[in-house]
């Protein structure tokens, strides 16, 4: 259950990104999780719901973009069928993972306070 440790790192990163906007509310957190990243998206959502309390993410919603694994031949760019051996038979080349191992914080959505001058807010 490393999803809790992933959420701890995620919340740290979100709070760091939101630091220039100390009065803004964090409304939404967008992440991309690859099928082969080793992160279970449902557990991640549960962990986020549990862990966000007491942080600046307390009212934030988590949006998870689940990315399927995509394997390709590095030479001819052919797609390797799901579940097939990870090798391009015509080229004899080992397949490369084109996507599906992401554990990425994409963006956050901030609701700015009237007083928040986004450009000149002091760093806290």
């Amino acid at each position: 259950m490393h999803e809790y440790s992933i959420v701890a790192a995620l919340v740290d990163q979100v709070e760091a990104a939101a630091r220039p906007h100390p009065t803004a509310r964090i409304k939404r957190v967008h992440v991309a999780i690859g099928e082969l990243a080793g992160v279970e998206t449902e557990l991640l959502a549960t962990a986020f719901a549990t862990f966000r309390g007491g942080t600046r993410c307390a009212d934030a919603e988590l949006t998870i973009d689940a990315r399927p694994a995509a394997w390709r031949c590095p030479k001819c760019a052919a797609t390797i069928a799901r579940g097939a051996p990870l090798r391009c038979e015509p080229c004899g080349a080992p397949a490369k993972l084109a996507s599906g191992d992401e554990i990425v914080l994409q963006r956050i959505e901030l609701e700015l306070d009237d007083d928040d001058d986004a450009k000149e807010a002091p760093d806290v």
Partner: protein
Amino acid sequence: MCSDCGCGDPDVVPLEIQGRILADNDTNAGHNREHFAGAGVLTINLMGSPGAGKTAILEATARHQAGLRLAAIAGDLATDRDAARLERAGIPSRAITTGSACHLDARMVHHALHALPIAGVDVLFVENVGNLVCPAVYDLGQAANVVALAVTEGEDKPLKYPTMFLKADLVLLTKIDLLPHLDFDLAAVKDALARAMPEPRVIAVSAKTGEGVDEWLAWLAARRAALPAPTAGAAAHGHHDHGHGHGHEHGHDHSHAHDHGHAHDHGHGHGHDHGH
């Protein structure tokens, strides 16, 4: 739009980040990697299920190695039993007791490095917590990932735990002395590995009989030979290949382990662990 604070209609603004959530761990892993490069040590992250035979393989490695100086960091939820076993096998070791954490991360390994000098060591094994899922997610700064898969675990493990095998540079198929007692299908596990690893590499070993251990040692030697030349500041490990190679295994050799040039402040560590 804003219903709870009466502030009017504040803008909701997106803030693009596009960064790895584990960036902090990646940074720490990079720091470990610099340590390892500086010391010229080959660091292996050894992963696998509980009971896959990780510790036994390292014990066999110590028994069969010829002149390689080994060290180990062993992660365990609750005990230091593995580190104690490795110490008894002649491998200077430190335990990381993770509590509830199901994996090692780069910071834990870095912390252990403070207590385990690696100057003069040829191969450092990081024996991860027994788990086929979580450890695969965390870079520790290792040069290679090795996954131990016991023949008692079933041929389909690579299909069930694809992330772990995707990250593996080598799979050690362990406990092959048990094959006569099992219906284990070697071709089936190789087929499963080919669907989880683009470049599957498997060595079948038995810690008990020693079968396959020479091939494993040859793999380690090749990986070690492929390391870039050590970075300045810890330049001396080329020398370590001579001289005190058997040091860790035999108590009487420990006295030799000192006085080998610049690395002394670290180098003594091994000896002291053994009661000198």
